[in-house]
C-alpha cells in the first residue's frame, strides 16, 4: 500500500515537473537575455564625420537590440591610444569589435589578437593589412578618387592647373584616392599638377600648405583635397585669401563646415561618403559574424559627388544632413 502511494506520488511529481519544464521552456522565449555588447572604435571620437558613423552604429544597435559602445582617441594620430582601446575591448570581453583603423599596419596585431580570441572584428572606413578580419566596409577609395577627378573636370574644365592636398603619405586610403584621382585626370592632358602636399590630417597645416601653393602659383585654377581635414583647411585658406571663386576647390566629405563653405561658393564640389552606412553595416555584419552567418569580405558603401545646386535634392540632403528627429 505504501509503495503504491509512493509510486503514485512519484508519477505525479514527474508529470508536474515535465509540465513545468515545458511551460518554462516556452517562457524562455520572451525572457530577457543578456545583451550582446559591440565595441565601435573610430579614429577620432569628436568629429562630425565620425559622429555620423556613431549615428549609424547606434541605429543598428537599437534595431538589433544590442549594446553599442562608441569610442575613439581624441586625436586621430593617437595610434597607440587606439591600439590600447582595442586591447581593452578584448580584455573587457566585448562580444564583437567594429574598428576604423588609424593605421594600416600598426593596428594589425591588436585586431588579430581579437580574432584569436574568437571576437569577430569588422573594419570600417580605413582598412588594415590583414585578411583575417570578418569584413571591410567602406568607400571604394579608388572609385571615390576617380569621381573627384571627374568632378574637377566638370567644375574647372579640361585645361587647368591644380594643387593637390592629400593627407597622410603612404596611408592606404590616401594612396587609393590618389590612384583613382590621377588615373581620372590622366585622360585629360590639359590638367597640370603644380603642387602636391600631405597635411597629415591637420587642418591648419592644410591651410598653410594651400596658401603656399596659391602664393607660389598665382595663376592656379583649383585646389584638390583628398579628405575632410585638407578640404576644410584649404577652404579656410581660400576664403582668407579672398580667392573665393578664383581658386576653385573640390574636396572630400560633408562636414557642416564644408557645407557652409560650399553654400558660400568657396567649395565647388564634394565627394560624399556614406559614414552612416559604414556604422550601421559595421554593427550589422559583425553581429552576423557572431551568429556564424557568412559576411562578404569587402563591402563598398559608395560615394556621390554633390555641389551647391544638387545638395538639397531629396536624395542628397539625406546623405549630407543625416536625419535627426
Amino acid at each position, binding site marked *: 500500500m505504501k509503495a503504491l502511494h509512493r*509510486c*503514485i506520488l512519484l*508519477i505525479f511529481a514527474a508529470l508536474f515537473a515535465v509540465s513545468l519544464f*515545458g511551460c518554462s521552456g516556452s517562457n524562455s522565449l520572451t525572457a530577457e537575455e543578456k545583451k550582446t555588447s559591440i565595441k565601435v572604435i573610430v579614429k577620432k571620437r569628436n568629429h562630425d564625420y565620425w559622429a555620423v558613423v556613431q549615428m549609424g552604429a547606434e541605429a543598428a544597435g537599437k534595431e538589433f537590440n544590442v549594446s553599442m559602445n562608441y569610442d575613439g582617441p581624441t586625436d586621430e594620430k593617437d595610434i597607440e591610444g587606439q591600439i590600447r582601446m582595442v586591447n581593452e575591448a578584448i580584455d573587457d570581453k566585448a562580444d564583437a569589435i567594429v574598428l576604423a583603423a588609424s593605421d594600416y599596419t600598426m593596428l594589425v596585431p591588436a585586431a588579430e589578437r581579437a580574432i584569436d580570441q574568437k571576437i569577430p572584428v569588422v573594419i570600417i572606413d580605413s582598412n588594415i593589412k590583414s585578411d583575417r578580419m570578418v569584413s571591410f566596409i567602406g568607400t571604394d577609395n579608388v572609385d571615390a578618387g576617380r569621381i573627384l577627378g571627374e568632378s574637377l573636370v566638370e567644375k574647372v574644365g579640361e585645361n587647368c592647373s591644380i594643387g593637390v592636398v592629400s593627407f597622410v603619405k603612404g596611408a592606404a586610403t590616401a594612396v587609393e584616392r590618389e590612384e583613382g584621382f590621377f588615373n581620372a585626370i590622366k585622360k585629360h592632358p590639359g590638367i597640370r599638377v603644380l603642387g602636391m602636399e600631405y597635411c597629415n590630417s591637420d587642418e591648419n597645416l592644410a591651410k598653410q600648405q594651400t596658401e603656399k601653393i596659391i602664393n607660389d602659383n598665382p595663376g592656379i585654377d583649383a585646389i584638390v583635397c583628398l579628405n575632410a581635414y585638407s578640404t576644410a583647411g584649404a577652404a579656410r585658406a581660400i576664403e582668407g585669401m579672398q580667392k573665393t571663386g578664383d581658386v576653385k576647390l573640390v574636396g572630400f566629405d560633408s562636414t557642416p563646415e564644408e557645407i557652409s563653405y560650399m553654400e558660400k561658393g568657396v567649395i565647388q564640389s564634394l565627394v560624399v561618403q556614406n559614414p552612416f552606412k559604414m556604422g550601421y553595416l559595421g554593427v550589422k555584419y559583425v553581429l552576423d559574424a557572431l551568429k556564424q552567418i557568412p559576411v562578404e569580405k569587402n563591402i563598398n558603401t559608395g560615394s556621390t559627388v554633390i555641389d551647391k545646386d544638387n545638395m538639397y535634392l*531629396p536624395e542628397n540632403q539625406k546623405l549630407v*544632413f543625416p*536625419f*535627426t*528627429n
Partner: protein
Amino acid sequence: MQRHSIFKKISAFLKNHLKLGSIQSIITLSFTAVTIFGMVIAGVALYSNFSQNAEKNAASSTQQIMDQVTINLEYYLKGMMEISDLMRSNMVDTADTTVKNLNDLLNVTLKIRKDIVTMAIFDDAGKIVLSDPEYLYDRNFNAAEQDWFKNSLKDPADYFVQPPHVQRMFQDKRPWVVSLCRGVTVYKDDKLVNWVTIVDMNFSVIEQLCNKVSLGRRGYIYVIDRHGNIIYHPQQQIVYAGLKEENIDNALSHREGSYFDDFQGERRIMTVKDIGYTGWRMVGVSFVDELVENQRDFNNFILYILLFVIAFGIAAALFISAKISQPIKRLEHQMNRIENGDFDIEGLEVKGEDEVKRLTKAFNLMIARIKQLMNEIIGEQEAKRRSEFKALQAQINPHFLYNTLDSIIWMNESRNYKGVTEMVAALAKFFRISISKGNEIITVGDEIEHARSYLVIQKIRYKNKFDFSIEAAPEVLGHKTLKLILQPIIENAIYHGINSIQEKGEIAISVYVEEGNIVYRVADNGYGIKPELLKGILNREPSFDHASGVGLKNVNERVKLSYGSEYGIEIQSEEEIGTTVYIKIPLNEPGDKKQ
C-alpha cells in the same frame, strides 16, 4: 543497477495493479479515457477557435490602434493648422501694421511649443518679413526658389505640406522638418499682395504618437504622403540611408484597410489608413511570423495544459482505483489464507471503508460458523468411534464368553452333543456377524440373525428360562442397518427384565416398516423399569450402575450419530408388566442406492 531495479519495480507494479478486468484497471482506464476525451475535445475547440480568430483579431486590433493614432495625429495637425491660421488672421485683420503683434505671437508660440522649429512669413518676392528672432537668417537663402513657396503662392487658399526636408533658411542650422505653408493675401501699400506663412514642425510629437503603440513585437507604423515620400518612419535614418526599404507603391495603391504583402521574403499584414487634412497615409506593418509564433506559443500552452490535466487525471485515476481496490485486495489476500486451510486466524481486522467493513464482518461471521461446525463434526466423529468401540467391546465381553464356553463344557459332559453343536454354531455366527469384516453397516437380515444367535445362546445358558419370537417383514431384510443395535437391547431385556421375574419370560422381536422408517421392536414381559430410572436411562453414565442401561444409551447414541437426531430409541415400560423398546432407523439412506 538503480535504474534497472526501478524499472523492475515499475513493471512489477504495473503487473500487479493493472490487470485487465480488475476493478482498479477498469476505474483507471475509464477515468483516463474520459479525461483524455474531454481534454482533447476542449483542446481542439480552443485551438480551432483561436486559429480562426487569430488573424481576424490581429487585423482588427491593428485597425483599432491605428484609428487611435490617426485621431491623435489629426488632432495634432489640426492644431498646427490653427497656429498657421492664427498667423494668417492676424495679418488679414490688421493689414501691414501687424508686425509687432505677430512678433509677440511667434515668440510665445515658439517658447511653449518645442515641436515647432520655425514660424516665418515671406513676402511675394520671397523676402523674409518676420521670423523666429533667435536664429540668424541666411542671406544666401532665397525662399522664392523653394518648392513650398511656389506651391503656396499657386493656391493661397490651401495648405501646402512639405514632406521632411532640411530647412536651410537659417545660418548654421539645418534641421529636418515638416513644413506647413499657406499663402495669405494682405494689403501692402494699398495693394493686395500674396505672402506666404510657414510653420516648421520637427518629428518629436509625430514620433511620440506613432512610436508609443506596438503592433506585435516587431510591427510598427510609418507615415507617407500622397506622393510616397516618407513623413515618419521609426527607423527614418536607416530608411534615408537607403539601408531599409518599404513597399510604398503597394501601400499607396491599396484602399484603406488591411492586406497581405510578401515583401523582402517576409509575409506582412499591412494596414493603411488615411490621415485627414494632409493627404498623408498611415501604414501599419505587422508580421505574420509573429502571429504564427503567438499561435505556436498558444498551441504549446494548450498542449502542456492538456498533458498536465491528462497526467493529473491518470494519477488521480490510479490513486482512486487503488483506494477502492486495495482493501478488497487485502481481504482477498486474507481469504486466500483461509482457503488454504488456515482457520486458526481470529477473523479479519475490521477496518477501511464502510462496504469493506461490512464485507469483512460477514466474512468473519461465516468463518466462525464454519469453525463451529467443524468442531461439532470432529466431536461427533469421536463420539461415534467411541460408542462403536464400546459396542464391540460389549460383544466380546469375556464373562459372556466364559459363561458360554462353560455352558458348552457342561453340555459336553452331560453328553448333550446336539446342544453343543447348536451352541457352538450360534456362537460362531454371533461373532462372525459381530465382526462382519469390520463393516459398520450390515443388512437387517444379518442383524436379526445376530440377535437370533445371541438369543439361542442365552436361552441355552438360562435353561429355557424364557421364550423368544422374531418376526420380520420380509421387505426389510435386504435393507441396510447399523449393526449391533438389537443385541444390546435384548441383553438388557434378559439381564434386567426377564432375570428378575419368577415366571417364564417372553421376548418378542419384530421388525417392520412404519412411516418410511424401519422399526425394531423388542418387547419383554420382565420386571419393567422404574419410571424415575426410565427418564434418565438413555443419558446415564455407565459408572452409575455398571450393568443397567449402558447398552441402551450406547445404541441410542450410535443411531443418532449415524442417522440424525430424529432417529434413536424409544422405551415404553411398566413395572411388573414389561418393557418395550423401539429402535427407529431410516428405511432409505441416501447412500443406500450406491451400495
